[in-house]
């Protein structure tokens, strides 16, 4: 399906709706990402460490010893680990779950993941033609909405009721002949979209080349539009039980199992689902432990309209892992990129011998405000070791869409929990340099 059957004004109208939907979805992704980070934090605290014997005699959450007869703990229905009476949360009248299983369930509700699972039962991955349509529409949108901002001409024929129905429609009114021409040329490119993604990108760039603006924006927005629900349902194709087994075995082997099986399934599902998108951040527990990501990064973001640049104020880090665990050393610095094109690399200074470095440095990134849409700020913390060896200490991704820059909350300092390295091709842009 394409949008050929719509008249150009209709098309613009639909795309305007899709644009709002996308913004909502990006925000939602961000919210879910934070939720997952908090869950991960909780899991980390409750993790069984390598030093400890995997036994029945300690509570799997707080790791306090359990007695043989009194305070012997009980088995959580969720994760089947022995849990002391303090690490339980009541569910219903008599039932309970351990803190981690409870938090997991909670996240499942709040992230809407329960629905994705249900949906997958009916729509296994193979059947995703409608979502492809959605993606296609969004890609169309990316081009057109950007263009429609450029020529601010008065509205052409458009009946009054149409206007009164939606104030935001005003954005889509500027609609010149040239845009219509573009639309025609675009729709011819649309046909290629179904064949391959690179075609799409080529097509978009081509269209854009005819106008002013940055090619980069389009390619970036394309990748952002890949975050449909269906994408995330694709991951459920993986038979979850065997997968779970494998994963829990692996992590047990590493001695870093957090115990709750469902958590593992959660993170695997999620990291899978996000892998195609830029918001891929928290990956599965095994990897998480192996690189020992810990701590938080303090940032404040502001957009300076006068200088048209993004100002990133790096406050501090706290509770970082030791980059050199053996000698318990850490010389941390923070590095920034703007994703998805990985532009504008910026670094703070290196602070010596501390896991709580204080920077108070301001880094500036020149960018037009409207180009921020769809961009993400990638911040990673590294240990600068001997012989230029770099050790990854954690990363965060922050969407730079307009809503966030206007957001008073993000203009003051926020502590962001560091996440393990994302594995996605476009999300995990944190290779060593």
């Amino acid at each position, binding site marked *: 399906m394409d949008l050929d059957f719509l008249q150009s004004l209709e098309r613009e109208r639909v795309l305007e709706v899709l644009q*709002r939907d996308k913004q909502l979805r990006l*925000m939602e992704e961000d919210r879910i990402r934070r939720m997952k980070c908090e869950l991960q934090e909780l899991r980390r605290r409750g993790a069984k460490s390598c030093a400890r014997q995997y036994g029945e005699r300690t509570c799997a959450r707080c790791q306090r010893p359990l007695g043989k007869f009194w305070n012997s703990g009980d*088995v959580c*229905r969720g994760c089947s680990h022995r849990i002391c009476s303090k690490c339980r949360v009541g569910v219903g009248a008599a039932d309970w779950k351990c803190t981690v299983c409870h938090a997991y369930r*909670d996240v499942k509700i709040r992230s809407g993941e*329960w*629905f994705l699972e*249900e949906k997958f039962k009916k729509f296994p991955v193979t059947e995703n033609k409608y979502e492809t349509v*959605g993606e296609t529409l969004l890609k169309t949108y990316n081009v057109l909405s950007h263009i429609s901002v450029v020529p601010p001409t008065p509205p052409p024929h458009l009946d009054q009721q149409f206007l*009164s129905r939606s104030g935001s429609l005003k954005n889509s009114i500027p609609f010149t002949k040239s845009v219509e021409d573009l639309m025609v040329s675009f729709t011819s490119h649309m046909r290629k979209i179904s064949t391959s993604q690179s075609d799409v990108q080529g097509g978009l760039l081509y269209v854009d080349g005819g106008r002013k603006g940055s090619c980069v924006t389009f390619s970036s927005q394309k990748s952002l539009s890949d975050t449909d629900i269906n994408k995330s349902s694709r991951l459920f194709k993986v038979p979850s039980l065997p997968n779970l087994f494998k994963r829990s075995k692996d992590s047990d082997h590493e001695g870093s199992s957090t115990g709750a099986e469902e958590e593992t399934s959660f993170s695997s599902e999620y990291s899978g689902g996000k892998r195609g998108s830029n918001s891929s951040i928290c990956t599965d527990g095994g990897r998480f432990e192996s690189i020992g990501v810990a701590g938080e990064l303090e940032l404040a973001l502001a957009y300076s309209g006068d200088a048209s640049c993004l100002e990133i104020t790096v406050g501090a880090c706290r509770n970082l892992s030791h980059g050199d665990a053996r000698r318990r050393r850490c010389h941390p610095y923070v590095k920034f990129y703007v994703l998805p094109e990985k532009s504008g690399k910026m670094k703070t200074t290196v602070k010596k011998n501390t896991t709580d470095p204080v920077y108070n440095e301001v880094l500036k990134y020149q960018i037009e405000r409207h180009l921020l849409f769809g961009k993400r700020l990638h911040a990673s913390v590294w240990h600068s070791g001997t012989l230029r060896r770099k050790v990854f200490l954690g990363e965060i991704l922050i969407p730079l869409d307009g809503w966030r820059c206007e957001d008073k909350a993000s203009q003051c300092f926020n502590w962001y929990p560091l996440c393990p390295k994302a594995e996605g091709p476009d999300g995990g842009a944190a290779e060593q340099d």
Partner: protein
Amino acid sequence: MASSHGIQMASATATYGQKESSDQNFDYMFKILIIGNSSVGKTSFLFRYADDSFTPAFVSTVGIDFKVKTIYRNDKRIKLQIWDTAGQERYRTITTAYYRGAMGFILMYDITNEESFNAVQDWSTQIKTYSWDNAQVLLVGNKCDMEDERVVNGDRGRQLSEHLGFEFFEASAKDNINVKQTFERLVDIICEKMSESLDAGDPAVTGAKQGPQLTEQPAPPHQDCAC
């Protein structure tokens, strides 16, 4: 289940709330789709609910549209993304593409329009085809303020809804009758489905550890036997 989680979740979101814009100040998001024949009043229904406004003029919806409203229900802040769809056949390819993402549906007909009522069955089939298996549907007979022009009486609506397994409301976007109630009821039944889904999902998820669980679980019954 929902209420027992209330305190826990409220505190969790309080910490989120400090960090984030008010936009994200909610516990979870539901997606709802309004469907039905053209001109039964889907858009008016949504505008009444989301903006508390009503315009008698008829403006045909182009393809799809949505509005967002956050409500407080069962100790939770629930953000609703309510999709309004075009009733016209020519947009069907776009609208059906959005069925799959919807947790619940409002299937609407116009009590003054027999044809719109006759089409309910077809809409219901569309839901079954394009949506998830547990899609929650409310059947709504709109324009119940226009009693003089009524051609579909309430009992027929009720019977059909029972036949289809949906809950039923007669409503009026114009006079603001049963609009809020419809959405709130739909949210409630989605919540119920959510709990069911999670509780049913639990054993499946923990299935990987079925072994230890099986050996541990018989413990409580044992104690009962000992008495």
